[in-house]
C-alpha cells in the first residue's frame, strides 16, 4: 500500500518558534509538494520539489522554506512561526508522469 506519512497530525507552536514539518514517501517518487489549506481558500501550493536538493516556489512561499536532502523526505520549515501560519498542511508526492498524486493525512498546525 503506497504511503505518504507526515510526522505529526496535530502541532501547537508558539509565535517566533522555528517549526519543522516532515514528510516521507515510500513510493520512490520524484516529485513532492507542500500545500496549506484554509477554509474557503482551497489548497494553496507553498513549495515543490522535482528531485533531490531541487526546490521551486509555489504560489505562497513567503515565510516558508523547504529541504530535500533525500528522495523520500521533504521538509517544510517555518523559520519564525506566526499566527497567520495556523493552518492544515498537506504533503503530496507523485511520479514524474504526474498520473496520480498521493497525499498525506495532513498536519494541523496551530501557532499561539
Amino acid at each position: 500500500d503506497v504511503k505518504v506519512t507526515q510526522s505529526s497530525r496535530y502541532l501547537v507552536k508558539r509565535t517566533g518558534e522555528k517549526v519543522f514539518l516532515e514528510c516521507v514517501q515510500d513510493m520512490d517518487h520524484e516529485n513532492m509538494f507542500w500545500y496549506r489549506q484554509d477554509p474557503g481558500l482551497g489548497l494553496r501550493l507553498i513549495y515543490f520539489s522535482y528531485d533531490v536538493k531541487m526546490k521551486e516556489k509555489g504560489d505562497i512561499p513567503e515565510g516558508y522554506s523547504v529541504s530535500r536532502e533525500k528522495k523520500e523526505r521533504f521538509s517544510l520549515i517555518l523559520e519564525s512561526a506566526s499566527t497567520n501560519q495556523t493552518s492544515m498542511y498537506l504533503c503530496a508526492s507523485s511520479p514524474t508522469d504526474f498520473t496520480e498524486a498521493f497525499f498525506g493525512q495532513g498536519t494541523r498546525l496551530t501557532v499561539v
Partner: protein
Amino acid sequence: LAKTTQPISMDSYEGQEVNITCSHNNIATNDYITWYQQFPSQGPRFIIQGYKTKVTNEVASLFIPADRKSSTLSLPRVSLSDTAVYYCLVGVISGFQKLVFGTGTRLLVSP
C-alpha cells in the same frame, strides 16, 4: 497552467447521479484533465484522469467534449459517503509542473 472554473457547491440526494462540470477554456494540446476527491480532515485522493472523449472507472466517469474546453465528472447513484470536495486539475502529465489545485466543488449528499 490552464485556469479552471468549477461551481463552488452542489447539493444532491442519495441515489441520484451527480455531474460536476469544470471549465478550462485555455487548455493546451498536451494537457490532461484530472479529478481529485477530498473528505474532511483528509488529503485529496485521485479519482480519474482523461485526455478526450470518455473515461470510466469503478468510481466515476469523465466526459470530455471534442473541443476539450470543459469536462464533466459524473458520479452515478451517489451515497452519503460521496459528500466531499471535488477538484478539477488541468496540466501536462510529463515533465515539470506545479500541480495546482483550485477551491473545488463542495458536494453535499442528503438522505
